């Protein structure tokens, strides 16, 4: 399949990781080997087999809609990279022209 550095850069963009050129060069062949190895799952003819998304069968669960204290705001915000007026402060989220 031969994954190129460009393919990896594209995947990294989707995953929001800004990889360096040097990392791309190392990662592309490594990922290629891994992907080639895991592609073995297609050797198994499994057309009629239902997929499992979980280890054991799941059923929906409910719990009482009871009022309870939320996380302590000051403690939560103390762990944030930046906070302002008791809120998370985030970088600009809109494009300049917007």
């Amino acid at each position: 399949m031969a994954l190129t550095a460009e393919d990896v850069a594209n995947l990294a963009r989707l995953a929001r990781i800004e990889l360096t050129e040097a990392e791309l060069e190392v990662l592309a062949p490594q990922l290629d080997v891994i992907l080639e190895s895991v592609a073995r799952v297609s050797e198994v003819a499994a057309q009629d087999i239902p997929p499992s998304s979980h280890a054991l069968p799941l059923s929906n669960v409910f719990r009482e809609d009871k009022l309870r204290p939320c996380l302590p705001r000051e403690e939560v915000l103390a762990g944030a990279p930046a906070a302002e007026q008791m809120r998370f402060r985030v970088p600009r989220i809109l494009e300049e022209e917007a």
Partner: protein
Amino acid sequence: MSPSQASDREIFRHSAVDLAAKIKSGELSSAEVVRAHLDRIAEIDGEIHAFLYVDGERALATAARVDAKIAAGEPVGRLAGVPLALKDILTYRGAPTTCGSKILEGWLPPYDATVTRRVLDHDMVILGKTNLDEFAMGSSTENSAYGPTRNPWDTDRIPGGSGGGSAAAVAAFEAPLAIGTDTGGSIRQPAAVTGTVGVKPTYGGSSRFGLVALASSLDQPGPCARTVLDAALLHEVIAGHDPCDSTSIDQPVPDVVRAAQSADVSGMKIGVVTELGGEGYAPGVEQRFTEAVELLASLGAEIIEVSCPHFVYALPTYYLILPAECSSNLAKFDAMRYGLRVGDDGVASAEQVMAMTREAGFGAEVKRRIIIGTYALSSGYYDAYYGQAQKVRTLISRDFDKAFSQVDVLVSPSTPITAFKIGEKVNDPLAMYRNDLCTIPSNLAGNASASFPVGLAPEDGLPVGLQVMAPPLADDRLYRVGATLEAVLESDWGGPLLDRLPGTGALR
């Protein structure tokens, strides 16, 4: 050696069950026990590096409170006053939770994991947080951003992973008990290579609330210990239904403690998995495994060879499902609500800051798995990779179902080889992944499994583990087999395997 050191030495050698009895009877105080372990950590953890954070002051304060409760005759938990170590992927309010990653360096969680809450509610004492591969991705702890943990049997070797810190802490007598988490073998493989006991409960048997998720459909917290009964007692403390985890099983916990005390396999049908052995398995691993199986047969178990043909696809299945789930779970590390933020200069956008932060904060293995997961989930590849892996997962579960219709438990080596040298496999991800060959099937199918020590490989003198796999909610069977092996092997050996810890330098 001063007298206090001499008594310390006796204290930290005790099992958890002995310590609990001595604390309850007043022969020892919890404070003395905790102090002995903190001293031990101070003495040797520079060499082992099992701990990322030691919570000494709070541990001593908790111990004093437990001592007061006992003195006042108040009811206390079965392991009251006994210290333990917590893998640094479970939250404990007031202690940093890093997950072995730079992206969470110094982050103080504002809440306790359910497992943490339970050990505290049972009057146990948390000594600190143990090292792990970053976000539990690895089999050696070499992927920790804070440096590897070293195997007490040979400090040039890995202690397994991802829970190498928890296993090494227990093996090196820094804690009688520890909590691990097992996604593909992260409790059992470290147990095997350190000569300790590690149990992965049935998926849903212990709560994942407050466990920083790697792969939500696979992760499961469980006990690490030096003895089978100690593991069972800790299992009992942490297991059981939790409304905060929607996958938690609302059924009684199997009686693991009684199973550990019964130590009887007569009449039990034990299946040896054909596919988990042969090429790629070290001779000493196969030898100790075969001897242990013969031992079980001599004690009245019926041994049956069982084929699980799809187990050979467990590794590729896992390395599609896990990256897919982790690429989604780790999306929450977006530099907005917790942890690191890089490049926020007032000009860069949130998206750019997120990408720069993840580049700076994640290590190589985390990046590899996130990118593989992104690939496996991308349109055009989804059916061939993730979709197909989910189908093979069904086939692996069916192999187990079929096997468990013939036998009570399955056994295999816990890991194909003994502890390898630090640095030996860091540049070969596939070779590293193969360490979890035997342990992964149980995670995919969700059943209970465990690793128990069965001796040292003759060629290198390093510990070998035997894996037992039981049907969902039959966790007690693991302990029956483990306790039987422990009783007979220890009488053969003339004591626990860890008595033979070579002990270089500070370890002696």
